[in-house]
């Protein structure tokens, strides 16, 4: 077999078995983003807390999960924990690993977003006697979220590809199913060409979504006050012309 068969690659692309793997990859990514955001928000709030126990725990959490490979985390959860009598289904193991890992990265993004909102915004909210909840939901969160979108986009892009590591613990997502097809037919390039195409499509779709989000949440960005812009360098993705 000394040639590359485009027809075979196209056939793999439309292979039903492989498509189901794509759905698992999408599912893992979406669930890990949602879970990771919720947990990451909690970790970020703890990190910003003045309570030394909470912020210490959060620091440790971030240090630990960002400092060890996701692959090891997954393997430990899948093969290591049963040794202690803790057993999850394969999918649960993958989700737990991905969420715990993603939360550590997202926590730092969330924290950076909140810290970039100037203290004056909170003071203005207090002066208007807004409740802490209203201040969070209507004043700080929307501004922080806008600043979070670019780094969040990067992180989700990485996560999408990192789900392929779940193949190692036998989750039948895109990568694993490609391996299975490859071992069956030995058309290595053709199978992985199809898988590569899928990953590219998924990341491109996400890019488009991210651009739309940035546009939506940046609806006042052309009008952003210079002061806020100067204090939040993280958010400056483009040069803006003042109207």
């Amino acid at each position: 077999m000394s040639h590359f068969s485009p027809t075979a690659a196209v056939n793999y692309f439309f292979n039903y078995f492989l498509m189901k793997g794509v759905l698992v990859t999408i599912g893992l990514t979406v669930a890990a983003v949602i879970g990771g955001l919720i947990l990451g928000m909690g970790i970020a709030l703890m990190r910003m807390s003045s309570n030394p126990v909470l912020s210490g725990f959060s620091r440790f959490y971030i240090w630990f999960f960002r400092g060890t490979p996701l692959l090891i985390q997954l393997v430990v959860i899948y093969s290591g924990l049963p040794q202690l009598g803790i057993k999850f289904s394969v999918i649960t193991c993958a989700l737990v690993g991905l969420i715990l890992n993603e939360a550590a990265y997202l926590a730092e993004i969330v924290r950076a977003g909140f810290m970039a909102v100037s203290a004056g915004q909170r003071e203005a909210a207090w002066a208007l006697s807004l409740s802490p909840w209203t201040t969070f939901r209507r004043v700080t969160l929307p501004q922080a979220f806008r600043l979070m979108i670019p780094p969040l986009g990067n992180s989700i892009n990485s996560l999408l590809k990192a789900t392929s590591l779940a193949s190692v613990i036998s989750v039948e997502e895109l990568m694993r199913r490609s391996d299975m097809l490859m071992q069956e037919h030995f058309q290595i390039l053709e199978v992985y060409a199809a898988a590569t195409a899928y990953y590219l499509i998924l990341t491109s779709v996400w890019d488009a979504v991210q651009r739309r989000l940035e546009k939506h949440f940046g609806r006042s960005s052309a009008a952003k006050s210079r002061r806020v812009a100067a204090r939040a360098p993280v958010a400056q993705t483009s040069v803006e012309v003042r109207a």
Partner: protein
Amino acid sequence: MSEMSMNTASGAEGAMAQPQLREVPAVRMEAVYKHYGDFTALNEVDLKVAKGEKIVVCGPSGSGKSTLIRCINHIEKHDEGLIYVNGVELDRQRKNIDAVRRDTGMVFQSFNLFPHMTVLENCILAPMTVSSMSQAEAKDLAMHFLTKVRIPDQAEKFPGQLSGGQQQRVAIARALCMRPKIMLFDEPTSALDPEMVKEVLETMKKLAEEGMTMLCVTHEMGFAREVADRIVFMNEGKVVEQAAPEEFFKNPKSERARTFLDQIIH
């Protein structure tokens, strides 16, 4: 202490200050201290402000003037001493802090408008969420005050599309939408381009003429002369002297006030 009128948001239009005898002062501070680490920002400050009175607080930078007015609505927490606002003590109780903040409006040096909301949204947020006003009602109220600061036509714009002077006038309107009894101004014109200072000062003068109780930290001595009932001069965290403007500008009693005036009046 009996006439603590705390029915806040519903205060009627002209209910600003009708000075009466023996009424509860708008602000009363007794031996207030505030420390930042080793630095003493407020050093045994006593201050009484009557309802309807206009006070200009001035002094060199770092003298504690901003800290002083930021303690009045508890944006800074004083460490020692007593602060009463319209008879409500600013202790650490949430309900008292909320009551005081509903009675006071604040205008900041850097405007602090919410950049992700339009001018109108900035103005209606607090009336709708704090005073549970309907959107229609809140919008009417906001347009009323935006008209008063002479920018009703900018209501749908975002703050960043406005000039500094316009932004500061929006900030004033936003504060007024909560119908405060006392307005605190923290160097409201210091961040403005020179040609925009006047429009903001005019707005403040108008407010003063309507009888609003005002405390302004400002270096605008022309404004102080014209509007203030009393000048409070601070240095190193202490109130060094208090006097009517003509008295203060003509014969400052302290050496420090004299050198300060020499520096800023050219």
